[in-house]
């Protein structure tokens, strides 16, 4: 296995390890902070709030959007082996589900 394949494998495993849903939730909280900072500069346009909104506020917003894009990327990488609303590892990394006896034998 070449180095690039190994790196790619490690990256995919890491991406799968973290939940898409959790990352999206993180993006939402971060975006709320950014929106609050930007809104504060409108409500109270003092030098510090305006400068803070134009620098830190917008940077926070960009981080939130990048988190969202990363979650989309993770979702694409995970593919169909991971239910969209199921936090936790992908199917292939989970404990095997107990098998049911479908024959009906006692």
């Amino acid at each position: 296995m070449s180095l690039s394949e190994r790196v790619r494998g490690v990256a995919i495993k890491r991406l799968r390890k973290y939940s898409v849903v959790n990352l999206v939730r993180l993006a939402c909280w971060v975006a709320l902070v950014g929106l609050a900072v930007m809104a504060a500069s409108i409500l109270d346009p003092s030098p510090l709030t305006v400068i803070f909104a134009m620098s830190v506020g917008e940077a926070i917003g960009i981080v939130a959007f990048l988190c969202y894009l990363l979650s989309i990327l993770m979702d694409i990488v995970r593919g169909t082996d991971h239910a969209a609303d199921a936090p936790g590892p992908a199917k292939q990394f989970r404990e095997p589900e107990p098998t049911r006896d479908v024959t009906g034998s006692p």
Partner: protein
Amino acid sequence: MPHAGPWLGYVALASAIVAAAILLHFLLKRPKLDLRAKLMLLLGLGVFPTITAATSTVAGMEATTHREFCGSCHTMDDHFENATNPDAQSLAARHSRNPFFGEESCYVCHADYGMFGYALTKMGGMKHVYYYYLGGYRQMSKEEARRDVHIAKPYDNRNCRQCHTTTAHVWRSIPDHQAAAAQLASNKMSCASPGCHGYAHPFSKGPDGLGAATSASGHPAAEHAP
């Protein structure tokens, strides 16, 4: 910069509220992360915050041109009070009463003009913020500020000539203007000097000179009156 008006602030707030509503709905209701939810999140995390950022930036930049913004630092209290005093007769006060200058009289007179004028003015403004919060100006008393805080560079006559073109017949017919035309053009003599139109902010010029004759309120200062 064109006047965007207060509606831009309303747009910024409205888009922020819509984005926050989408995000809070996702965080509190925890809907299934299907295509519909993802598209809603694209609006809540991408589209509406982008609108908020863009409009709040323009609104914020415009807010920095308002006289209240300049007067929000206590070192500018005297200047603000003088400019807004309807009885004051200083150059700054008279110009501030002119509707063309309106609520942005500080900016209109002190802005750099030309292609990069707006950016240069804002960079200069950042220096003011730095000096105020990190350079010790914030701790200054008003008396210290009046004594120690001065304009960063000599006032450029070109700013006056944005309105007073100096090409009209009336201007050229005044003998003093004719005599000083070269010095005015080269900025060696200021339009706002004691022998000419007087200081723009005379109260800030100390006890000597014409500035001493006027207090911040615009009325003759008793302690300096002859």
